[in-house]
């Protein structure tokens, strides 16, 4: 293990290290802690210039209550759910199929299609912006959740295909050959042999895509505009203009907006990191 395990160092070094880690963590998360502290203060503290002293009262419930009951925040959150969940299902389903096709079969153009997916996944969003917006408007899907979902599914299929194909490549190929010798139909190989083995990849990809889509801001701004369809990342700006300069409420609002992917991450940590670091180890 590198660096030298701390257990092998002197007692003093161990104690220093153990106190240094939490300290470093607090420093690292300081901007976020500051916002969390803001969100439990009353508004008067800000007009009195009491930013960092003890709060004059403890207003956690009032502030978060306002976010949930006196703003459009719940609508935006619900929109985000309605956009994110179908996208995850769609992108994962499509990429299970493309990954299977590219990972199992050898045919001319296999690598070419694979590299098309990878390359498309890297392009700047702006090169797609005008045509995609135009397409969405023409299809009558501007400012609808469906318009966003369709685009997200298509774009995420690039990354998901890369992921799934490499995962399927690592599966034991003999299994599929054995099934073929037995005369199992190709689609049954997919459904009954490959798909069950892909569960960990599906789990990893789902949490990852959930976070990516939940956090998307650019496409939300380009393809939607009102509280009818906008997800929470775009909605937070109108929330902030509703409570302009009321830092306690804006802080509470952004914490609420950030929470779902954070919860997802902590609940599915193993899958999340497995997905994110795929390829970091050979």
């Amino acid at each position: 293990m590198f660096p030298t395990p701390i257990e092998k160092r002197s007692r003093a070094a161990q104690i220093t290290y153990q106190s240094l880690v939490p300290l470093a963590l607090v420093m690292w998360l300081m901007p976020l802690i500051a916002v969390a502290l803001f969100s439990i203060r009353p508004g008067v503290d800000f007009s009195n210039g009491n930013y960092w002293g003890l709060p004059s009262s403890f207003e956690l419930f009032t502030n978060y209550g306002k976010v949930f009951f006196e703003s459009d925040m719940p609508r935006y959150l619900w929109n985000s759910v309605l956009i994110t969940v179908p996208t995850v299902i769609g992108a994962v389903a499509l990429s299970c199929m493309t990954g299977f096709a590219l990972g199992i079969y050898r045919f001319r153009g296999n690598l070419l299609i694979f590299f098309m997916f990878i390359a498309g996944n890297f392009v700047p969003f702006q090169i797609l912006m005008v045509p995609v917006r135009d397409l969405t408007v023409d299809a009558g899907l501007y400012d609808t959740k469906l318009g966003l979902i369709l685009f997200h599914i298509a774009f995420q299929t690039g990354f998901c295909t890369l992921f799934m194909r490499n995962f399927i490549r690592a599966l034991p190929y003999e299994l599929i050959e054995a099934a073929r010798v037995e005369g199992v139909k190709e689609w049954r190989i997919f459904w009954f042999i490959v798909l069950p083995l892909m569960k960990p990849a599906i789990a990893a990809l789902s949490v990852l895509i959930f976070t990516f889509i939940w956090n998307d801001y650019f496409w939300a701004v380009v393809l939607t505009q009102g509280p009818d369809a906008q997800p929470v990342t775009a909605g937070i700006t109108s929330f902030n203009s509703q409570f302009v300069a009321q830092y306690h409420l804006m802080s509470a609002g952004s914490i609420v907006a950030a929470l779902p992917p954070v919860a997802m991450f902590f609940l599915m940590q193993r899958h999340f990191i497995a997905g994110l670091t795929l390829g970091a180890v050979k």
Partner: protein
Amino acid sequence: MTIATDPETQGWFQRNRMIITPLMFLLPGVLFFAIYVIIPIFQSFYISTYEWNGLGDLSEQGEFVGLDNYRELMTDRAFEVSLWNNVKWLALYLLAIPGGLFIALFLNQTIVGIRLYKSLFFFPFVISQVVVGLVFSWFYLPREGLLNGFLGLFGAGPVNVLGDPTLATYGIIAAGLWPQTAYCMILYLTGLNAVDPEQIEAARLDGARGRRMLWHVILPQLRPATFIAFVVTIIGALRSFDLISIMTNGGPFGSTRVLSFYMFEKALSEYGFRMGYGSAIAVILFLIMLVFIGYFLWSMWRDERDARR
């Protein structure tokens, strides 16, 4: 079970199933991807030769102007500023890689609760960039911000980071480095986990330690992690949009624009709906990105060729 091997008795589908099956499986994904990603890239090239406000049909409402949009870019001050800011983003964003490596080395220990510490260090990456932008713009506030509260302790003065044209871009990049460093950290932590312990022991016996050990023994083994960190950091730097839009909206005086933001501003915001000009900016950004994409694909292609079975 007996298998029909005589091609005459098999149907057309059965004979060609090794071609048909993958095609059927690929069709929906490729179709979607082509419509929403591949074709729009070429359409943007085409639109960039038009002057068009986005209303109506391009061929009816738009006016073909050839390369005029690109000529206009050459003399556009705002474009020049954006381009320079992109260079700053690219150069400074790469600091996330050594930064992430440093934190990973710091945390690669086994003490009580280290798993939780690692996740909490990684935490900024999970939050949306919009919230990161808000958090940092409050952190920088001249009166209420923590940064100036902190500087005040040392008698230093309030600095209005985001209001100062020379500082604002650096302030935003610092905010961007926060989640990006966390990402690189997790890549390196995973990489460090897989480093071969025998090689480390052997190197230790040979007297390698500290920095020399890191450079000659550890880093070569971390190459896959470094490659991915490099890819995601470059892409992230050139995609920076959310933070700028949230923190300064391009200001003060347009000093924090980058190409991705300037393109959006030209094509879709109150500055007018110049789709053609916006597309021309997007094309330039795409061409810059293409250099990197080409390199990444070439590297992956090499690995793929070596791994062919």
